[in-house]
């Protein structure tokens, strides 16, 4: 018998599992909206995971580690931006390399730091861990169902939702955001309309990287309970790339999408063991592939993919 409590538990777990995806997805949407397919999400998240964890280890302050994660993500996205915008290098190749580099760098420094500690575990302080706990607002969190449903997550989840809403507002309601979207559709036309293509590409990609970085910090700090573990991002960056398609390149949809994908990730713990676990792990990718396929079959009308995604813009080629 499925009780209300069981369903509540499942939803809360799904939202928590979807949180890192939300950051990765929103960050990648910003980048793809200017036409740059950044396959380095996994790497940027890993670097954010490292810098966030390191700052948390040093400062015992959650806000500081989030900012450090943001900065780490920004710097790694800057590498990508300089090489693809400035040096017009192939986006796929640079993105993949950023993933290999970022994951490798985080693991390398992680192993080094673990070796430095006396106990052979690189661990956050109890003080910081208490700051990362799910919030508890006295009256609100105690309201029966709703309190648990809305006011029982950790600070990252709320940050992620706020960032997603801001990005949605930026992309669809501000002039700068709409200009940005024009760049992703047709950079030459945007350039002709006196939009500063290079500048806005840099801004979007670097900000997107920063947002991915915070998602990485969630992976390193929350998922493993404050203990550093190699490969802590563990493929979530790739799921985020998939989720961008599922969310049809809209940050607001990404909120719902990430919680659905989060639900898919935790579903295996709530389902009878008759269905193989591999199937649940595969589901996000199958669904994304199906969405991609259906969108392309329906033609340009149904697809939200930026027209110029994956191609660099060289002004003198016009």
């Amino acid at each position: 018998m499925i009780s209300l409590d069981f369903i509540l538990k499942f939803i809360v777990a799904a939202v928590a599992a979807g949180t890192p995806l939300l950051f990765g997805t929103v960050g990648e949407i910003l980048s793809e909206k200017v036409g740059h397919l950044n396959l380095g999400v996994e790497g940027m998240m890993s670097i954010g995971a490292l810098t966030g964890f390191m700052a948390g280890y040093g400062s015992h302050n959650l806000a500081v580690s989030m900012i450090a994660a943001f900065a780490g993500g920004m710097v790694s996205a800057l590498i990508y931006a300089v090489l693809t915008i400035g040096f017009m290098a192939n986006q796929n190749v640079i993105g993949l390399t950023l993933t290999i580099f970022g994951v490798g760098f985080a693991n390398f420094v992680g192993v080094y730091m673990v070796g430095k500690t006396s106990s052979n575990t690189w661990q956050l302080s109890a003080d910081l861990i208490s700051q990362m706990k799910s919030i508890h607002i006295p009256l609100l969190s105690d309201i029966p169902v709703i309190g648990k449903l809305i006011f029982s997550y950790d600070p990252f989840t709320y940050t992620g939702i706020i960032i997603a809403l801001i990005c949605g507002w930026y992309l669809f309601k501000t002039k700068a955001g709409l200009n940005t979207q024009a760049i992703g559709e047709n950079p030459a036309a945007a350039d002709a309309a006196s939009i500063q293509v290079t500048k806005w590409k840099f801004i979007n990609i670097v900000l997107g990287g920063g947002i991915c970085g915070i998602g990485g910090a969630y992976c390193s700090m929350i998922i493993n309970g404050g203990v550093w573990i190699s490969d802590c991002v563990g493929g979530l960056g790739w799921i985020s790339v998939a989720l961008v398609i599922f969310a049809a390149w809209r940050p607001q949809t990404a909120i719902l999408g990430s919680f659905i994908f989060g639900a898919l990730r935790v579903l295996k713990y709530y389902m009878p063991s008759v269905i193989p676990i591999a199937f649940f792990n595969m589901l996000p990718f199958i669904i994304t592939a199906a969405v991609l396929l259906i969108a392309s079959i329906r033609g340009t009308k149904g697809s939200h993919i930026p027209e110029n995604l994956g191609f660099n813009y060289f002004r003198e080629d016009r």
Partner: protein
Amino acid sequence: MEAKKREPLLRVVKHAELSRTQSFLLRLLAVVVALVVGGIFIASIGYNPLEVYKTMVVGCFRSVMAFQATIKFCIPMCIAALGVTLAFKMKFWNIGGEGQLIMGAVFASYFALFCDGMPHVPLIIIMFLAGFVGGGIWGLIPALCREKWGTNETLFTLMLNYIALYIVTYLRDGPWRDPQAAGFNKIARFSANSQLDKVAGIHFGWIIMIVLVVFVFIYLSKTKQGYEISVVGESRDTARYAGINVRRVVIRTMFLSGGIAGIAGMIQACGADATLSTGVANGVGFTGIIIAWLAQLNPIATLVVAFAFSILEKGSSVIQSSFGLSTACADVLQGIILFFIMAIEFFVRYKIVFAGHKEKKLSQAKPEKKEAAGK
């Protein structure tokens, strides 16, 4: 980057083609700079970079066994890179080498597990073909979808990688689980009959690798089909105008591209690992893309770059044992090297002109040469 008054501070223009020596020297410079930057990083955490680099290189050649281990790293990387080379040559962004490799391994493993009563030689040939077909099918799917509906191949091949990976997980936990395995689920070790034979101490995958290097080289530069690939890569419209059936070329080439990656998977499963595990690809499909790109999609250069990368891989495991540093060092160095080469690559083809600078030699600027695949 733009200055006030609409005139950009910096401007990028194409310049005349550099000579082979010049561009080679530039790339060499990039590698040196990358190693210096990597060295600064190593020094910053308190190790002597020269010592670390030396240990890496010496570690790969110190004994016959060490050298054999280096070659073992080289085989899958090189073959996977050859696979994506074919696809990239026609600007089909096949990011799915990883999945194609896995599916090749899955198909080959079926015969290794369930037909190991067959005579050895036919069995190996069947496994080889199964690996090729398995990878080929996984490459064919995105090609068909793109040609029929215009599905974005980068994203679609990416999804297929993970679907392939979880197919292995499913087989491991379900139908192919070794009932005798204690603890974690795994697939049984292949019997000696279904493992690749050793030649000179290494499974004969290295011979397949060399044959494939030669094959891809000849295929791309000497055959009609190879020529069609490069025309399609240059411009689909030109190809169509010249009477090439673009759709057929893309589908055929992707089958071949996936198939070659599948052969790498078969070699990994039946040669190196003697079993099928979820780590059969272990990122090789992705590294292969980097290698192919660094080698400028030239099969011979691919072998050289793959060998250099395998020195980094093997060297990293040596410095792990002697310095306690992580094997992830290889990934970091590979990344840095590629970043610098990509930056330098820009200067091979373009130059930066500052605002106000008078251009005297404008007439000399030639259009971009055709192999430069910048986009």
